[in-house]
């Protein structure tokens, strides 16, 4: 259809049909006041403040819900319109409580702003405040619905963007207010406390609860959330050096838009925890002594040099962090590789399934397959495996829920129900760890029926013939048995994905599994036979940590260099040797688990940990402790006192993301840089600065001295990070179109798997139950940071175990009872939550709570090795405590 031209306030505006008058006016810089409209929400014309007049007919209408028409002549501020607007505001104010003085919305109140613009002061109406309940029991949201103007933004954010549906208008007339089901308090409703409603509320009806009255922020700065791998853009409000409020930033193109999750919104109060580290500390025996930075860095340099000289570079190891910035991880691995000559470097992403992710890189290339989350909904169907994104990476979960709500078929393969299940078209309730067999059954069914994308297969893949022959030789009966499903489920799934391109979303339920690498290979095979590559469809890996992807891209791993160039790749290595003017070892170094084993054997002498807390995040704490005790020198650089800093010889206090410059690369492969919002605690230092100084002391010719110099070096050295040079960031990649693996990339032929595993395993009768480990939205990773958040711990102070109704009946358990869960590795006590989300025999245990003691049930073994049992689940036995 042709564009429409109309006149607004004498200005000619041309816009596509269907545009609202409000948007058309905005496009030419004409501001029309409004309370209910929001760029990301469906317009509903509730507040009537955006009234405009059509000059020829004299009609007055709400511009947000009126589409443009040809030849329209609109006046946005005629006397008549102004009079109407003023009257509406007067009526709103007559109903509004006069508590502006103590309202936390303060000068950011949009009602107040509009009243001031329209010159409405005294409204000369009889005040009739509409008194409503004041709700402030939960530690996150204060609801003072007397201040509600019924704009419905909170309701639309909840329904359209977050897709939870906890609130809607209730009652009508003066009684009408947004309410939960049965008008219960938020904590008794389906509210997830994402706080997105608070951020869009124009008045003080919804506000963030702060432990003490801190006033409105003096300053607002944009930052990136340092919790999960979604990489949400934040607007952090601060008073002095204190972060008092967090909201989604209003910059366009951010991954989160107007939404956040409970962690991002309310968990950042950990920044002001009492156990923040504020000075370098040296341990002698049991005593801790504050020392100066000069002494601390001098000591660190001396020790590292000594150990290298006395025992060789292989006796040193470095543990970098998937929570630290790209710049820091780059420097850290460079310190290990170039300055100290060892590939013994890894990062926390190891336990989140680095090897499983690498398996995908090996076949599809590292950066090419990463795509923006906004493209999930562009496929014809979505398949989610081993993930509850509504808990682990909520904002990524919103994308899936929105697509499913709009009618895209959603298939879930998961042993238990998730926050997506109410929208799923088919749910395959597999046995824990039945993913591989389920995938094999789906592949076999599709191949047998011939429901494959022949065009894509012949053009862009290789090895399909032997692959399909092997599939056809498999026995359905065995696959169904291993997956714990029946033929009907597989048929339903295949009927649904027949001829479709799929977005395959993979979470840590798969990535941390014993056979994660094989599953990821099957997932790639599924993507290949359905042609789910390129423009529509693809594989989306839900990264758990804010810079998991970036840390890998920077080479925080023992077997690859920055840009994920394998250390054994002679050509790639020579390039780095030339750039760094140093000799690099072609042998892979130690991964996290090997570091601990080598420490325990006494072969590792020095360890430098930056921003990781292995004593909380990893299983087998006794072994780790024993290993760390044998170290000659343990340096721990962190922001909070934690289990691992207790064991250090030297503690270097670093800075949190909100306190330093840097950049994170999110799960989409988007590089996002940020500036400090507040200063680090006095005595602490940005981590990159610590590393830069230390490297100079260790003999690097000169200090880089600033983030921009580090970025310049990264942009020259790391393939795919050229865009970091300008300090803004962009998409990690080498300039190719995102997700360009596919028919259009003719040179690439992706091989099918050479062998098909089906994950059969004898079951251990002495442990009849399954424990499935996963994420709760009120925890993050192992909980080092979020457990220091006052709000989060107040709301959810301790962990729990979700036990099925059937098991509860069988064992006589009720809500709140304590149970002991025993596995081969150890046991934990948890309180019971009776749940209908899992089948009989499956217990769900969230990570992070109670010092992350869920790890007691697991063993420590090299990922994918012969003794590795997986970190997503284990066999167990339960009894009442």
């Amino acid at each position, binding site marked *: 259809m042709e564009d429409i031209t109309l006149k607004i306030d004498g200005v000619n505006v041309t816009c596509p049909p269907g545009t609202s008058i409000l948007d058309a006016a905005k496009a030419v810089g004409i501001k029309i006041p409004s309370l209910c409209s929001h760029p990301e929400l469906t317009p509903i014309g509730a507040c009537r403040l955006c009234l405009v007049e059509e000059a020829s007919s004299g009609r007055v209408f709400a511009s947000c819900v009126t589409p443009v028409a040809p030849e329209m002549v609109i006046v946005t501020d005629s006397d008549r319109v102004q009079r109407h607007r003023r009257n509406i505001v007067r009526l709103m104010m007559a109903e509004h409580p006069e508590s502006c003085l103590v309202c936390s919305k303060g000068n950011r109140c949009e009602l107040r702003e509009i009243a001031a613009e329209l010159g409405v002061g005294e409204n000369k109406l009889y005040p009739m405040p509409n008194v409503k309940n004041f709700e402030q029991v939960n530690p996150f949201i204060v609801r003072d619905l007397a201040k509600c103007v019924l704009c419905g933004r909170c309701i639309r954010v909840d*329904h359209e963007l977050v897709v939870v*549906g*906890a609130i*809607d208008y*209730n009652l*009508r007339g003066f009684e009408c207010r947004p*309410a939960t*089901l049965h008008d219960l308090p938020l904590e008794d409703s389906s509210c997830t406390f994402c706080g997105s409603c608070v951020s869009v509320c124009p008045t003080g009806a919804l506000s963030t609860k702060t432990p003490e009255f801190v006033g409105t922020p003096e300053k607002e700065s944009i930052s990136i959330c340092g919790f999960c791998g979604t990489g949400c853009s934040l607007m952090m409000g601060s008073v002095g050096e204190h972060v008092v409020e967090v909201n989604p930033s209003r910059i366009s193109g951010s991954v989160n838009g107007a939404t956040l999750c409970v962690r991002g919104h309310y968990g950042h109060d950990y920044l002001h925890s009492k156990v923040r580290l504020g000075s370098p500390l040296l341990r002698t025996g049991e005593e801790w002594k504050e020392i100066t930075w000069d002494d601390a860095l001098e000591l660190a340099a001396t020790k590292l040099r000594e150990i290298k000289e006395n025992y060789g570079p292989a006796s040193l190891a470095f543990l970098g962090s998937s929570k630290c910035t790209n710049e820091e991880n780059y420097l850290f691995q460079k310190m290990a590789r170039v300055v100290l000559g060892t590939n013994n470097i890894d990062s926390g992403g190891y336990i989140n399934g680095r090897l499983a992710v690498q398996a995908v890189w090996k076949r599809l290339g590292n950066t090419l397959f990463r795509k923006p989350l906004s493209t999930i909904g562009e496929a014809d169907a979505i398949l989610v495996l081993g993930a509850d994104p509504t808990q682990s990476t909520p904002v990524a979960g919103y994308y899936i829920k929105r697509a499913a709500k709009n009618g895209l078929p959603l298939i879930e393969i998961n042993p238990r129900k998730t926050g997506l299940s*109410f929208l799923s078209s088919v749910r395959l309730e597999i046995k824990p760890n039945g993913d591989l067999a389920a995938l094999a059954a789906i592949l076999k069914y599709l191949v047998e029926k011939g429901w494959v994308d022949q065009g894509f297969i012949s053009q862009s893949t290789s090895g399909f013939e032997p692959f399909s022959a092997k599939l056809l030789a498999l026995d359905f009966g065995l696959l169904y048995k291993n997956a714990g499903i029946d033929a009907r489920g597989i048929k339903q799934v295949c009927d649904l994905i027949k001829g479709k391109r799929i977005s395959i979303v993979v979470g840590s339920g798969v990535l941390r599994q014993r056979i994660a690498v094989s599953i990821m290979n099957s997932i790639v095979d599924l993507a290949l036979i359905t042609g789910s590559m390129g423009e529509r469809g693809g594989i989306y890996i839900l990264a758990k940590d804010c810079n998991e992807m970036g840390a890998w891209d920077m080479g925080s791993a023992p077997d690859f260099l920055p840009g994920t160039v394998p250390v054994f790749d002679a050509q790639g290595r020579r390039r780095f040797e030339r750039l760094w003017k140093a000799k690099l070892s072609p042998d892979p170094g130690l991964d996290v688990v090997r570091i601990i084993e080598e420490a325990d054997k006494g072969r590792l002498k020095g360890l430098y940990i930056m921003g990781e807390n292995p004593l909380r995040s990893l299983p087998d704490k006794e072994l780790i402790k024993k290993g760390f005790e044998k170290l000659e020198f343990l340096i721990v650089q962190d922001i909070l006192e934690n289990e691992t800093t207790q064991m250090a010889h030297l503690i270097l206090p670093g800075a949190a993301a909100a306190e330093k410059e840097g950049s994170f690369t999110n799960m989409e492969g988007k590089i996002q840089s940020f500036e400090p919002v507040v200063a680090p605690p006095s005595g602490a230092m940005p981590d990159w600065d610590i590393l830069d100084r230390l490297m100079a002391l260790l003999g690097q010719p000169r200090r880089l001295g600033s983030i921009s110099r580090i970025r310049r070096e990264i942009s020259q050295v790391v393939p795919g990070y050229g865009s970091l040079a300008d300090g803004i960031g962009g998409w990690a990649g080498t300039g190719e179109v995102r997700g360009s693996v596919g028919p259009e990339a003719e040179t690439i032929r992706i091989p099918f798997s050479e062998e098909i595993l089906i994950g059969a395993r004898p079951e251990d009768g002495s442990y009849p139950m399954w424990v499935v480990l996963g994420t709760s939205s009120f925890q993050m990773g192992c909980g080092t940071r979020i457990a220091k958040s006052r709000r989060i711990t107040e709301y959810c102070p301790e962990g729990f175990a979700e036990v099925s109704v059937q098991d509860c009946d069988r064992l006589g358990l009720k809500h709140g009872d304590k149970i002991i869960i025993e596995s081969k590795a150890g046991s934990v006590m948890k309180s019971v939550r009776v749940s209908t989300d899992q089948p009989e025999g499956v217990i769900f245990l969230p990570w992070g709570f109670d010092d992350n003691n869920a790890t007691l049930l697991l063993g420590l073994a090299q990922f994918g090795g012969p003794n590795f049992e997986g970190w997503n689940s284990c066999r167990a036995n339960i009894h009442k405590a």
Partner: protein
Amino acid sequence: MGKKTIDWERLGSIIEERKKEKWGLIPLLQEVQEEFGYIPPEGIKPIAEALGLYPSQVQGVITFYAGFALEPKGKYVIRVCRGTACHVKGGRSIFRYLKRELGLEEGQTSEDYRFTLETVACLGACFLAPTMMINRTYYGKLSPPKVSSVLAQYGKERMEDK
């Protein structure tokens, strides 16, 4: 007769019947209201689930319309007219008299779930003022003795029921 028990089977079959209709929510609620005399709050979740709506949305529709109730109403719903004509003809005293006779305030339901007393803005039968309506039957030109005899009719029926 105490707290009403819900006939889940009947509710389920109404939901099943209506869930295929587009815009089926209001017809569904009307049928439930008709059948049960109210919409059981416990029924909101299954209704929402069947129609692919949020429970809060269903509640919003129920509480918006005066025709839907979340609390059980009496077998006989008495609606007294508050319109201008009825007001002039003494409708207020009729309402007061009814309150005393039934021992109910506006909007209340008797403990035995026999009577619910409500007022409405106008019954549209001004020529009969003052008026009231019991379920679907109009009663006009009311006076206290007439109200008593009307109530007695419904009272008698109660005796017959037993």
